[in-house]
């Protein structure tokens, strides 16, 4: 059949099961946009900034496990995808970015809106393609999806010159993909699996350290089976949240810089670390040389380059985490560790996650309430900062794909668009976006998309009037020199939300939180923005300083520190009363720690 390149592109996308594209048009992609008309099964979401399109594709992919797709024009459209691509690369998120390119005969001439996007994105994509000949287009699209979703997932980019979209050719759909130079190992080596099982059966104090790879591989049941079979505590990374239910008695929550104290103590004491789809990130290990001094290491990962990158493993197993755990579960004998578990339970009692109970509104409380109001069934999407760490600590994930966050790159601005992508992918789940007054302002324009599509996302701004996480570091490591972190001058988020057509609530006091969240849950035809005025100078604890060791962990707010400000307004919970709000704002003292 003779068709245009643009039609072949959309046919190919349809064959890959694409139902949603997040994008923004421009000269180089007009032929593609024209063709979208003829594909009613594929809905196109018009974003307000291409960065939003990229993060929406990520949110969609993370919430559903499917490949997210975004589309942008050449030049500035394409370069606006750089941050989401880098983000997806760091967190192994499968997305396909399609960019328009100037006409083939103009490539390399500094033509209008030309950017060498394949060159620019080489280090931040798993692979990328410039389509030079329309005859290659179907094959490239098929390969792109294959590369994005197989092995260690990741972002890919396809750059399509305008004349290629317009060119007619004889189209035959691609039935299967075979890239001889790309054959990820999926099955783990049986000898290594046996050796791992032996180590596990010998260990006295084993621990499961579970990363994002377990979520990507859907290894939820297998992780749980192993943990229960050998009665071993489980800690997850930020990206591993949800790979093991945090309400399970064996759960230690998150480990690392802002992980629970008991997870970090347990890891530092273990004699066997079973790493599952985790990459020993520096936020997890701190000072590597002193991290797991007494432990043997089993490292299970689909990416051979992760093995031995940071720490040498005693037993490395390359392959699909789910497949390997299935085999491993068959051969481990199931030695129990009652003493180890009770030692850990004691740690849990002695060092619980903690925040002040002083009548002041704290971010941690808001997060706890979000978990409760939604029966721990919501998808929690976060931005980056203190609020993200509180969400990781207090939300209590119960299932995979429930926690959507930017871990590796730590991208402020990720939250709102990723929440939109997640809601498109999982329309039946409540979606909460936990964000900060800084982060929300990085992609706030996408609120319009949420309103237009009537997405009932609940955007919870933990508003501390600071770039909180940076302020925390300045407080702790730079003698309170709060250089450029003051966000007192922010727009009135309630008015702003209303201008975008969203519902808006402002809340000052713990006693108002529940009602505010319930109100948000009851709004189903548009997004709700909740402006939670939280304690200004609260910190995230526990904290291990960057590159530090367990001995430097600060478990909770030191008692000799000045008490947290009593940043409270009179009203408990406000609906739309902006007038009062304005006054409150002016009477609020600006506290400074000593």
């Amino acid at each position, binding site marked *: 059949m003779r068709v245009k390149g643009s039609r072949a592109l959309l046919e190919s996308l349809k064959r890959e099961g694409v139902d949603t594209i997040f994008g923004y048009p421009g000269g180089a992609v007009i032929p593609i946009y024209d063709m979208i008309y003829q594909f009613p099964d594929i809905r196109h979401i018009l974003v307000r900034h291409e960065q939003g399109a990229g993060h929406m594709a990520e949110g969609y992919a993370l919430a559903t496990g499917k490949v997210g797709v975004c589309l942008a024009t050449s030049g500035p459209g394409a370069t606006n995808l750089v941050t989401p691509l880098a983000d997806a690369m760091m967190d192994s998120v499968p997305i396909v970015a399609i960019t328009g390119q100037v006409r083939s005969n103009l490539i390399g001439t500094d033509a209008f809106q030309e950017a060498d996007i*394949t*060159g620019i994105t*080489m*280090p931040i994509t*798993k*692979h990328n393609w*410039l389509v030079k000949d329309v005859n290659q287009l179907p094959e490239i699209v098929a390969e792109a999806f294959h*590369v994005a979703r197989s092995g260690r997932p990741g972002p890919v980019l396809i750059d399509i010159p305008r004349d290629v979209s317009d060119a007619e050719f004889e189209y035959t759909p691609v039935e299967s993909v075979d*890239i*001889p*130079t*790309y054959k990820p190992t999926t099955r783990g080596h049986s000898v290594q699996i046996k050796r791992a099982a032996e180590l596990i059966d010998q260990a006295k104090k084993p621990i499961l350290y579970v990363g994002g790879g377990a979520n990507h591989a859907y290894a939820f049941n297998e992780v749980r089976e192993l943990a229960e079979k050998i009665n071993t505590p489980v800690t997850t990374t930020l990206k591993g949240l949800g790979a093991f239910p945090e309400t399970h008695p064996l759960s230690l929550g998150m480990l690392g810089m802002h992980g629970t104290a008991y997870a970090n103590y347990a890891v530092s004491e273990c004699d066997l670390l079973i790493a599952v789809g985790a990459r020993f990130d520096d936020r997890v290990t701190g000072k590597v040389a002193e991290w797991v001094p007494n432990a043997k290491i089993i490292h299970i990962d689909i*990416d*051979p*380059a992760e093995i*031995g*990158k940071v720490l*040498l493993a005693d037993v490395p197993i390359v392959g699909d985490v789910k497949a390997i755990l299935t085999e491993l579960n068959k051969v481990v004998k199931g030695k129990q560790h009652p003493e180890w578990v009770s030692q850990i339970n004691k740690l849990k009692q002695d060092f619980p996650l903690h925040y002040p109970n002083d009548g002041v509104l704290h971010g941690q409380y808001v997060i706890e309430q979000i978990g409760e109001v939604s029966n721990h069934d919501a998808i929690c999407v976060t931005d980056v900062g203190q609020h993200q760490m509180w969400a990781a600590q207090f939300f209590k994930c119960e299932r995979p794909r429930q926690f959507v966050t930017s871990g590796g790159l730590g991208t402020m601005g990720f939250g709102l668009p990723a929440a939109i992508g997640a809601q498109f992918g999982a329309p039946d789940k409540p979606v909460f976006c936990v964000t900060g007054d800084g982060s929300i302002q990085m992609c706030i324009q996408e609120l319009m998309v949420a309103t237009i599509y009537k997405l009932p996302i609940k955007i919870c701004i933990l508003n501390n009037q600071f770039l909180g996480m940076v302020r925390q570091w300045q407080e702790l490591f730079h003698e309170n020199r709060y250089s450029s972190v003051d966000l007192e001058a922010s727009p009135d988020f309630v008015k702003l939300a209303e201008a975008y057509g969203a519902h808006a609530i402002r809340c000052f006091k713990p006693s108002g939180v529940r009602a505010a969240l319930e109100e948000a849950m009851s709004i189903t035809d548009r997004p709700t923005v909740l402006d939670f005025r939280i304690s200004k100078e609260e910190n995230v604890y526990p904290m291990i300083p960057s590159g530090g060791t367990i001995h430097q962990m600060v478990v909770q707010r030191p008692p000799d520190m000045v008490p947290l400000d009593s940043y409270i307004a009179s009203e408990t919970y406000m609906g739309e009363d902006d007038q009062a709000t304005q006054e409150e704002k002016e009477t609020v003292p600006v506290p400074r720690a000593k």
Partner: protein
Amino acid sequence: MTQTQQHTISVLVENKPGVLARVALLFSRRGYNIESLAVSITENPSISRMTVVVNGDEQEVEQITKQLHKLIDVSKVQDYIDVPIIARELALIKVNAEVNNRTAILQLVEIFRGRVIDMSDKTFVIEVTGGNDKIDALEKLLEPYGIRELVRTGRIAMARGVRGM
């Protein structure tokens, strides 16, 4: 800590535009200096072979080879550190050759089994192949006459015997 050593790494890649950039980028991104790099097609015109010389300890180079292997266009990677290999490079050296120096220079070239492949009233161009030590040595000996231009290909290498990649 393992010792830093010079590694000769052979990489088989698809013969496509952009592949060299991908490989080179991988080295620079992870902070490794490429000592030398030679690329050309192989007996199979759709495959190119890159020979990369790099310094690093065992773990670093292992990481590099693994990362190289991850590139979609790379089919094989071999670090020749424990493999007997033949390694060569080619140099072209344009040296001042005044009439009264010519015999001496020709003798040097002879000893190093090079060849004079161009000659003018003031210069020779000498071609020499061999390991980099040999070329370094010849270069040093020619220096007193005045080297005007020097081009080296960088190392190419192949495993000895039936062993290949």
